[in-house]
């Protein structure tokens, strides 16, 4: 019996060694094909990872069309590249891997720039700013972080809110969910005292759920939302930075905000709370 287990382990080890050897050889070869923009133009299509369940940034309307603030930008980018956009719907924690595995050329799924993520993907210049906010019942609002000590807070896996609480608020118990749908359902079912997520989502959510309030509007440092490309994809990164600069100049983001976001936010929120004006 012992002998057999040993044999199985040896076989597994052999497989792992083989796989990791392949990994090394392939990663060195992938950096050599560098003109990715030309490649996309030649293919005539850019694959972009977007959310499908995040109104008003990336969602699907009743005619089955993908719409939202991120989607407007995605279509504009495809248009300026002169190619078609192919959208791949992702979950929050699938965004990095989708780029790494080459499933998409770019992520435009409300991707917040963080130091950890910078290690694994390349971010272009930001097109939105956010920070972590906390929503709770209006009847029993959480307005200070101290109120959450030893209480449960709902977050979605892989989000900035999860990272912030894990690192900086260790006394708070986290309840982690896979999707936005699940996290908001959990809050409505009173599974926890509060829910933490990027404040930009929360502004929109409380407009439609008036019994809840964004008690804490900003928590921790403010962060930025950027398009992301695969690590080392210099050509597409440079192109995207130029594109963002150009769109900023011609007022695209202001228009995008008024068209896609303004109808969903409370009236006290202005375009300059979200978009980056320079």
């Amino acid at each position, binding site marked *: 019996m012992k002998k*057999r287990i040993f*044999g*199985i382990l040896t*076989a597994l080890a052999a497989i792992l060694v083989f*796989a990791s050897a*392949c*990994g090394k050889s*392939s*990663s060195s070869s*992938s950096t050599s094909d560098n003109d990715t923009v030309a490649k996309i133009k030649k293919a005539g299509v850019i694959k972009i990872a977007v959310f*499908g*369940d*995040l*109104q008003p940034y990336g*969602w*699907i*309307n*009743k*005619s*089955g069309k993908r719409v939202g603030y991120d989607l407007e930008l995605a279509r504009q980018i495809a248009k300026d590249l002169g190619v078609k956009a192919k959208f*791949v*719907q*992702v*979950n929050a924690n*699938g965004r990095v*891997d*989708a780029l*790494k*595995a*080459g*499933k998409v050329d770019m992520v435009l799924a409300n991707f917040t720039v963080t130091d950890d993520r910078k290690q694994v993907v390349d971010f272009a210049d930001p097109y939105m700013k956010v920070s972590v906010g906390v929503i709770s019942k209006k009847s029993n609002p959480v307005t200070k972080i101290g109120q959450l000590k030893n209480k449960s807070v709902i977050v979605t896996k892989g989000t900035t809110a999860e990272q912030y609480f894990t690192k900086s608020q260790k006394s708070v118990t986290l309840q982690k969910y896979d*999707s*936005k*749908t699940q996290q908001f*359902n959990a809050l*409505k079912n009173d599974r926890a005292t509060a829910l933490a997520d990027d404040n930009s989502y929360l502004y929109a*959510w409380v*407009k*439609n*759920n008036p019994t809840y309030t964004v008690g804490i509007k900003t928590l921790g440092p403010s962060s930025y939302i950027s398009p992301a490309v695969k690590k080392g994809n210099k050509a597409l990164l440079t192109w995207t930075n130029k594109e963002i600069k150009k769109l900023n100049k011609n007022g695209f983001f202001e228009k995008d905000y008024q068209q896609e976001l303004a109808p969903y936010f409370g009236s006290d929120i202005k375009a300059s709370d979200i978009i980056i004006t320079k």
Partner: protein
Amino acid sequence: MAHSGIDILFQGQNFHRFLQGFGVTLRVAVITLLIGGVLGIVLGALRTLHNRPLQVILRLYLEIFRIVPTVVLLFVVYYIVPQLFHLDMSGELVAIVTFALWTGAEMSDIVRGALIAVPQHQVESAQALGLNRLQQLRYVLLPQALPVALPGTINLATRIIKTTSLLLMISVMDIVNVGQTLVEANSHQHPAFAFWVYGIMFIMYYILCAPLSWWAKRIEKQRLERSNG
């Protein structure tokens, strides 16, 4: 609330998209079952041979696919394999490959069990007639084993259908994924709409699975009636 939200289900493309999701789920399940079924029969037959190295390999294959959760397998094939081997497959293809390998593993165990259940004197009679190993399988063992394996196979099929709900994790627009986007797009204005969406999901999975499990029960009953006179 006067407005329950059921009419949203029939607005625009909503219901059509649900049906498309149903189609994706059905397609992945059927193709998986066909490929996995054939693979499982071949592997199951191989597992009745008395060849040690082959048994170890097949056993290892079965145990890996049985122990590792299907969602982990999906992630490995969808995210890791393309990075290692530069092999780019669409989400649906990834799902079919992964599920077929998993189904093949589970199926091989069902088939092996059914083959072993065929009485030894049947094999001996076949040998006496001068049939070789392959002919024994083809004319004696499989015809008797497959009816025994059928109820288990149909149960496996319902498990495959239910497991396709994992497609959501790898960007495939199956029933669950479509349902979630519908809920998210409408539940802000009409919170009760989610109820209808999950209700439709329930009905769709029920339509797919209930006839199968009814059929499995019937076949098993008939077989028992026949074998026990």
